């Protein structure tokens, strides 16, 4: 796209971030926690979207990236007494390594095979986390409060139990990820990824080493997912196997589909919509997973473009 709308686009994204920032002062505590949660999982979705929406590769194994961050951070705090910044770094490092390793193997396949391979690796990771339950405490998981020292910044102390601290940390991660995806999609690298999504052979014959680009995409995708996992542990003080199960690989797919694959603000829209839908429906029925299932079927048949995708096609063509 010609970059005439550059400023408007940037403005829209910035406005979203500012909106969220201001929200923390006006919304009631229950919703503040919801939004904190939403922002963290939206980062996870944005990570997922980099691989699916921009590069065209559907994975069912992202839970292993999310939980690499989660476990790296959780375990280093719980057993090694790391402070939050160091633990977060550990989480990032773990997700980079994990996504690079898995990418080198799994990216030799594509399409349905890629989907199954990523699903299998993730399942193996999940089972391993159960098997090693002496360390990971398996399904039960472990809690960090009491182990996590407050954040020290410039003489001020920020306790992780403080909901405002949680909210703002989540917001910072979300904002960074949003701006990163915006930049990525409009950069030369992003253009190559789109080319791979649209027609990989043609992109190859335009002189691009598509394997390397796919690997880069997977690493960015996995690292954003891991960062989300890492921050999840820090803010919600918990790490457990259930977050590594296949359900947590399906969630980002669902949220991204609902919000709009290949759009920048689709992920948070989808994550938020689903969160509130589940919240409302769990007042009516205890099987929110039914809602998940039904949503997937409805979306894939009638709204494959998702909410933001639909808006983009109909009204706002310039939305990235």
């Amino acid at each position, binding site marked *: *796209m*010609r*970059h005439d709308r550059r400023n408007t686009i940037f403005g829209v994204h910035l406005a979203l971030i500012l909106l969220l920032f201001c929200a923390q002062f006006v919304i009631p505590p229950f919703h503040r926690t919801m939004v904190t949660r939403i922002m963290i999982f939206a980062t996870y979705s944005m990570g997922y979207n980099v691989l699916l929406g921009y590069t065209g590769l559907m994975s069912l194994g992202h839970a292993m990236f999310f939980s690499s961050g989660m476990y790296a951070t959780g375990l280093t705090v719980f057993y090694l007494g790391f402070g939050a910044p160091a633990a977060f770094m550990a989480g990032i490092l773990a997700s980079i390594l994990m996504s690079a390793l898995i990418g080198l193997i799994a990216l030799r396949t594509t399409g349905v095979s890629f989907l199954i391979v990523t699903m299998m690796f993730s399942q193996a990771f999940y089972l391993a986390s159960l098997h090693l339950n002496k360390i990971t405490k398996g399904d039960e998981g472990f809690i960090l409060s009491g182990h996590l020292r407050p954040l020290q910044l410039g003489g001020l102390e920020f306790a992780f139990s403080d909901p405002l601290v949680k909210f703002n940390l989540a917001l910072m991660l979300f904002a960074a990820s949003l701006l990163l995806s915006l930049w990525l999609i409009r*950069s*030369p*690298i992003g*253009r*190559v990824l*789109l*080319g791979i999504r*649209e*027609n990989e*052979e*043609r*992109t*190859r*014959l*335009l*002189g*691009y*080493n*598509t394997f390397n680009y796919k690997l880069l995409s997977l690493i960015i995708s996995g690292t954003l997912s891991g960062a989300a996992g890492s921050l999840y542990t820090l803010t919600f003080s918990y790490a457990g196997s259930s977050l590594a199960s296949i359900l947590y690989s399906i969630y980002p797919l669902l949220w991204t589909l609902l919000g709009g694959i290949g759009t920048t603000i689709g992920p948070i829209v989808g994550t938020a919509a689903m969160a509130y839908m589940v919240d409302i429906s769990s007042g009516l029925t205890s099987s929110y997973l039914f809602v998940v299932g039904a949503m997937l079927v409805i979306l894939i048949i009638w709204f494959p473009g998702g909410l933001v995708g639909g808006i983009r096609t109909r009204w706002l063509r310039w939305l990235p």
Partner: protein
Amino acid sequence: MAEVAPMTPLLQTEALSKRFGGLKAVLPVNLHLEQGEIRAIIGPNGAGKTTLVSMISGRINPTSGQVHFNGRDITKLRAWRRVALGVVYTFQITSIFRDLTVYENVALAAQRRLMRRALDRVVLRETILVDRVDAALAEVGLEHVVDDPAGLLPYGHQKLLEIAMALALRPKVLILDEPTQGLAPDEISALCQRIKEISQEVTILLIEHNMTVVLELATAITVMDKGAIIADGTPSEIEADDRVQEAYLGL
């Protein structure tokens, strides 16, 4: 008496062959392409023409033999590396990015040439890119559709887009695989004119069935049949060759 030193061909294949299981698609072939030529490869369907150029461009691996470009053995190089060296292939059946705009199609090609240094991959000066894209589109006459989705272009224009993308890559050797197929007569003559203009800077390897086009454009012709080269020479030599008449009925 001084000997004229033989000019090293820009591109040559040495005993290049391809077998698919039991099928011998291309028998060991020695093809020479001199710089500045427009060489046409002609022959009946199934002669192995597309297989041969696919091996040259790197799309498929040869069973045996070598490809040399600019004096360098590129046989082991993968397709994307060969493009960087200047060997560019355009598809017989157009393979463009249908859902992206014409601009984006050519931009993806043009930016490859601009992404030499690592930093360029991250930040690119948009104005240079725009200039390159506009230049490539101007060479084929597609400036007016720059913001249209590529998939909506009429077929003839899609073929032109393929060529624009190839040009944006600043090729040294441009391989055109049946560029006039599916075009209307007036489009064909316009394309011939453009190819002549392009050939002033670029060496062209052309697969064609349309003999009028071949005779108008080619400076050299190679004839293939059943996987082997059966004749090689100037247009007048080929026109007079009996074997060619025999193998390629309808000449």
